[in-house]
């Protein structure tokens, strides 16, 4: 799949909030050849931001070594049902996507 849909779950755990976010992204390393033997150009997520109720809590920089269709899990201190979590990414081609979920 090319860069596309995301899905997120945020659940209240024992004293923390568990976040699991799935992203559709090829995460191409630039070293892989396609079926015709041509190198597939690099294409990967470089930045990731996690926000809670509009406030940034995690910022990440990532390389092409993150697996295709990335899955990240994070944890937040405390939290409450209904807290709005937003995760967004930006890749090396300037493409971007984001998803939102309320803590359940």
């Amino acid at each position, binding site marked *: *799949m090319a860069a596309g849909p995301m899905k997120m779950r945020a659940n209240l755990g024992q004293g923390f909030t568990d976040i*699991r976010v*799935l992203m*559709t992204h*090829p995460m191409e390393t630039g070293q892989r050849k396609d079926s015709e033997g041509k190198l597939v150009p690099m294409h990967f997520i470089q930045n990731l931001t996690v926000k809670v109720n509009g406030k940034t809590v995690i910022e990440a920089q990532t390389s092409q070594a993150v697996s295709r*269709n*990335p899955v990240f899990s994070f944890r937040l201190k405390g939290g409450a049902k209904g807290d709005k979590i937003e995760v967004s990414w930006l890749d090396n081609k300037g493409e971007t996507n984001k998803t939102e979920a309320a803590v359940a």
Partner: protein
Amino acid sequence: MRALLVGLLAVSFAASAQDAKKEIQKYQQMIASGSPAELFELEGETLWKKPQGPRNVSLDKCDLGKGPGVLKGAYAALPRYFKDAERVMDLETRLLYCMTTLQGRSREEATKRVFGNENEPSEMEYLSAYVAGQSRGVKMAPGTSHPKEKEAYALGRALFFHRAGAWDFSCASCHGEEGKRIRMQDLPVLSEAKYARPVMSTWPAYRVSNSQFKTMQWRINDCYRQMRMPEPSFASEATVAMNMYLAVNARGEPYRGPGTKR
């Protein structure tokens, strides 16, 4: 002394083999808990509801055996006999039927690209992910009462033990004996319920080795490829029969897929 040493060596060897098995299991558990399979269910839902074909209608009136548009538990009851088509069908065979009858698409167009790749998954793959996901928690109960269903099971069983091809393989060559593996992969004895259940209750599945979502039709197709056989035709009676044999061997198991595989 020497015997003791040899004994110790054997023990440590056995221990390391045990450890390796444990670590592989841990690997499998960890990838399953962080699987992108759900993304395919999401896309599948969009496709299910998207009007397509000459009649420009979606698949949401497709009858997968539980009535038009009923998805809950439909996958867990497949394969089964369909009176309208006068044959036993598995999920993909039935989806193809709906594409041709409801959407008015030609079989040729609808089967042009049944197996996708990592860049472009196929419509069948997305749809299978979505439909199968609607059976989570439902016990697998493929059709076993209609004579055609019995026939399909018997044919599937015969196919399973049938040796042919350039390398003389049958399915049972790899999946016929307990405790065997290929490379590091344990081989399930698919003729037995104990082994068929965990396997069949987690297909279709996301395969991490090639970042692709794969269906049962693909699974059977790729086994025959590696058996050095010619290619089974998509949705053919033989492939549905094989699927039926495996599903019946797994019946009673709550469906837990779409799963994640190596």
